[in-house]
């Protein structure tokens, strides 16, 4: 069966220098080399390369994706398969090297034309220190790319151009690890347990974009499709990837390969449960009948796998919850005990005060629910302070406009920023919806 060894290289500091490489926790990056990789594509007009570390008085604006460089050193295929020119071979076997605590951060201001096409293409920020530094994205070290593209690109090309440049940089940095011995190794396999244990499936629901040609992808495939069975090792090798348009945090590439659900289920596999794998079901279908069909087929797959229990997760918000809830209902009705891991109230959550902490607003904590959803683990709701202080350094762009309904409300990125005043329906803090419970922002009042 599929066995994947992850070799981890923790990054404890980054410096600029040539040639680039990794040794004993120190990552040396050749900024000129990385800039040249961005500019290989003539559609990339400008590229700035910055090194950003936690604790700095730095604010990163216009965050579009975060990508952890990973490299396959043994076994078929390429990390992050079937996107950005990578081959589509099935991944999840062999040896993969990864950085730990380090990622490539892609920043690009959304041109007005793109914002008109996708109103949710909002501006996100990451603060590296201070009261806004509550998400996991404030704890990583970054090579941050700030890219400006040719002005005439359409939405799909804009997305592909940005992602491809970021993956060229990611692949270059991952290449530093090719010949090295990893300080830490961990092997992952779903070998059948020696005794009969409760069989558990991870129902990994994944938003599909209603705007054609963009959205998070499974092996490069962005369209809505019926559910697919993935081995968790495929996900660890990057089979699920984000887009560069809508920076909903549950869709970013980094969180897919660092989804804490995967190692935690692996830890339990063979001990007190048998993990059957991940059914990946797309959400945000347009018609009620499509939502039903997707849910029904997800339930059927779980039954065919012989699941006794299911862990349902989602990476989004809004009407995606209908098919998620219908799935939970169907699983329970099929006798499959189901637990749901979820955020609460996903909009209008800008300022957290103790009075608002329960639901984040006057809205119910979940948009839609079914009586069968009787075992729910909450990762809570956003905790940001009312305003963010000024920062001495800015990366990604000098000004921000957070509310797409008020594009004229522009503030200097360096701040201070009154989030309550400046924001629209969503918090601009990247990582604010903590679908998998990684950050510390969720536990304000729990």
């Amino acid at each position, binding site marked *: 069966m599929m066995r994947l060894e992850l070799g981890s290289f923790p990054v404890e500091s980054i410096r600029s220098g040539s040639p680039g490489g990794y040794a004993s926790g120190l990552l040396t990056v050749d900024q000129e080399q990385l800039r040249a990789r961005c500019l290989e594509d003539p559609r990339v007009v400008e590229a700035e390369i910055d090194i950003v570390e936690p604790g700095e008085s730095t604010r990163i604006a216009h965050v579009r994706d975060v990508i952890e460089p990973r490299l396959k050193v043994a076994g078929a295929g390429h990390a992050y398969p079937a996107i950005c020119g990578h081959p589509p071979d099935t991944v999840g076997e062999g040896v993969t090297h990864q950085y730990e605590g380090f990622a490539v951060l892609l920043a690009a201001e959304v041109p007005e034309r793109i914002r008109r096409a996708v109103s949710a293409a909002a501006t996100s920020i990451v603060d590296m220190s201070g009261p806004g530094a509550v998400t996991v994205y404030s704890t990583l070290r970054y090579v941050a790319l700030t890219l400006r593209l040719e002005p005439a690109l359409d939405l799909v090309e804009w997305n592909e151009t940005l992602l491809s440049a970021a993956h060229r940089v990611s692949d270059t940095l991952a290449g530093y690890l090719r010949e090295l011995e990893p300080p830490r190794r961990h092997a992952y396999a779903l070998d059948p347990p020696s005794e009969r244990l409760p069989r558990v499936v991870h129902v990994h629901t994944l938003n599909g974009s*209603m705007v054609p040609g963009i959205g998070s992808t499974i092996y490069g495939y962005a369209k809505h499709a019926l559910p697919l069975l993935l081995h968790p090792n495929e996900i660890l090798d990057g089979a699920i990837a984000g887009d560069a348009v809508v920076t909903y945090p549950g869709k970013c590439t980094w969180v897919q390969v660092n989804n804490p659900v995967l190692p935690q289920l692996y830890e339990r596999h063979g001990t007190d449960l048998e993990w059957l794998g991940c059914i990946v079901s797309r959400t945000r279908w*347009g*018609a*009620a009948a*499509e939502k039903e069909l997707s849910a029904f087929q997800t339930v059927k797959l779980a039954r065919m796998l012989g699941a006794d229990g299911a862990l349902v997760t989602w990476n989004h918000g809004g*009407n995606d919850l*209908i098919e998620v809830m219908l799935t939970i209902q169907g699983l329970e009705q099929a006798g499959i005990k189901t637990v749901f891991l979820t955020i609460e109230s996903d909009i209008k959550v800008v300022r957290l005060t103790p009075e608002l902490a329960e639901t984040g607003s006057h809205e119910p904590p979940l*948009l*839609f*629910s079914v009586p069968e959803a009787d075992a729910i683990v909450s990762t809570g709701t956003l905790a940001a302070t009312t305003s963010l202080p000024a920062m001495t350094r800015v990366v990604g762009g000098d000004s921000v406009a957070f509310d797409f309904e008020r594009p004229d409300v522009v503030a200097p990125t360096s701040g201070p920023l009154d989030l309550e005043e400046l924001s629209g329906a969503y918090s601009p803090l990247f990582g604010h919806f903590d679908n998998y419970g990684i950050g510390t922002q969720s536990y304000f009042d729990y």
Partner: protein
Amino acid sequence: MVSALPPIALQAGGNRVVKGVKIEHVCGDPSLGSTGDAALRRRIVERCLDAVSAEVTKPTLFEIEEAEAAAP
């Protein structure tokens, strides 16, 4: 109300919910062509008139019959 997502409308307490087509186009279906789309839109409006004149005691769903929806 006409809703592409009746489960939410009903759970929110909408008394008379007419099932729409889909989120992208609630009150019609451009894939049917202009004549078919117009006929479907008329059906939806007529169903709304049925609904608004119906006695209801709890949130109630009014669907467009499949045969009606497909009729040119």
